[in-house]
């Protein structure tokens, strides 16, 4: 899992990509990833072109390459899984670098690594150019149930607080010379988790009461209008449009 600081994910800047309304970016991203997943893995050049497209977006949004690479660590477990595929799959065998592997498995591994990498890069670009709060507003405009959006908003608001609480507990444990080393220390860690749950739940009750006293009626007021203009929708549509051109161009 990535680091817990959601505000560290956002890269403040003022570029056309940052200014796009969040719902445009969300739909554009989902369409792009769906097109990538639908692409035949044997069309290697198509994936290279998709990568170029994302590179153009990254340059336009001024997202540094180093940040992209650092956040791509999340896909490592599945890359390992993919690396095992050529040896586990059946089918025609071939020899690469003196190792016998399945040709089909090799293609499958490529398929997973290529598509997962493109998906991860696209998601990182979205998170780096959109503030979490605005992204939730965009989700609400896309008619996601507002209760679900509210739960997500509360989660993002308080996840830092809860993580801090967990950090303080760890420091308290360690200052008493406790370090979880083997399975016999599990009860101590679990007790911390239990205490963390009680504190989170009680904080939730307090937050609810505080909100009631400020006139909360079950819905949050929308104070920021994130309506997208036709020009912005058109700009956001260029990414999936370019991707689908590549997909169809390959079929002809």
């Amino acid at each position, binding site marked *: 899992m990535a680091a817990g600081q959601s505000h560290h994910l956002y890269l403040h800047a003022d570029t056309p990509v940052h200014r796009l309304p969040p719902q445009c970016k969300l739909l554009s991203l989902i369409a792009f990833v769906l097109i990538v997943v639908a692409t035949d893995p044997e069309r290697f050049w198509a994936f290279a072109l998709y990568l170029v497209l994302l590179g153009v977006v990254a340059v336009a949004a001024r997202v540094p390459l180093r940040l992209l690479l650092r956040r791509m660590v999340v896909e490592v477990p599945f890359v390992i899984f993919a690396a095992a595929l050529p040896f586990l799959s059946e*089918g025609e065998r071939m020899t690469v670098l003196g190792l016998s592997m399945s040709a089909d498995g090799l293609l499958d591994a490529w398929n997973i690594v290529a598509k997962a990498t493109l*998906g991860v890069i696209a998601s990182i670009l979205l998170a780096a150019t959109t503030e979490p709060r605005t992204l939730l507003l965009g989700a609400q405009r896309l008619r996601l149930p507002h209760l679900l959006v509210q739960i997500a908003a509360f989660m993002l608001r308080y996840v830092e607080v809860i993580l801090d609480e967990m950090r303080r507990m760890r420091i308290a444990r360690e200052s008493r010379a406790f370090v979880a080393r083997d399975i016999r220390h599990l009860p101590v860690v679990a007790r911390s988790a239990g205490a963390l749950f009680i504190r989170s739940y009680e904080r939730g009750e307090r937050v609810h009461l505080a909100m009631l006293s400020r006139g909360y009626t079950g819905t949050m007021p929308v104070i920021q209008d994130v309506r997208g203009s036709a020009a912005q929708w058109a700009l956001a549509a260029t990414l999936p449009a370019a991707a689908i051109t590549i997909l169809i161009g390959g079929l002809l």
Partner: protein
Amino acid sequence: MHVPDGFFTVPMSLATGAVAASGVAYCLRRARDELDDRMAPLAGLVAAFVFAVQMLNFPVGAGTSGHLLGGALAAILVGPYTGVLCIAVVVTVQALFFADGGLTALGVNICLMGLVTVLAGYGIFRAVGKLVPRNRTGVVIASFVGAMLSVPLSALAFTGLYAIGGTSSIDPVTVAAAMGGVHVVIGLGEGAITALTVSTVLAVRPDLVYGARSLIGPSTLRTASGELVSARPAEGAHRAAPRLRPFLVGGTAAAVVLAGLVSFYASANPDGLERVAADFGFLSQAQDHPLGNSAFADYSIKGVDDERLSVGLAGALGVGISLAVGAAVTWSLRRRARRRSGAATIAEPLTPES
């Protein structure tokens, strides 16, 4: 456990997306009944807790550590409906903000980690809870078993989905073996830490453990003269235990849709085992199954000419038949249990607060 893009085909992503969306929508409605306007802040904070606790590494031994998935834990602590919502929100936030798990695989991830882990974990928790003594120890034992089994079950569900709509031709038995072994061990850790966490919360705030609500008796007051009076139960303080029927109906619908829709698309490719058989050249020697002449032989239906349609129908019917058999067994067991105990416990009606 977060599946990235590229693992599943587009039809599979869309099918699981539809199942996840309807499951979450259903839980949203039921959870709103449970928590009314406290819903958003409380579920949000619990989701933040699940997110944090997934980062809490616990030692497994030999220098390795694992982390909690938290589905069963959330279900036992805050109830299955709210639990599904919390996990779904956590998974979505991880996909959108942390690029952890693909966007097209969001449906798969919500199905596996939200629906399967929470529902299987909570279902087993309730079932085991009926067998063990009705006290704190019983609740802790039931949480251990529920959480422990929820992990390999979720891995099994992944294997099933992967065999049907995965992008690779790998033999499902290999995947099952590889996933199963690891996840049984992970499940042991999950079970232990879930049980210990539940027992901690039970010791401090037993009223917060949704799965142990039946243990809380009415509060008693000691009057000035020293006599004990049982207090009137607070309005809405005791939430009724969720009924099982909605789960059964929802689960059945999801299973039928998945089996029918997905096998409709998957039937274009031969299934993994048949493929192995073909590769090793023993398909031609294969004896026909004793049921070879039955209506469902080779998962297609006689009299339906379109091959893919018939395979899809057979998938849906297969699920229906296994469910019918399961339901018949459960029903007869329940009848016997009811006759023995005489009176069935009556769940208190739901009274929303304020």
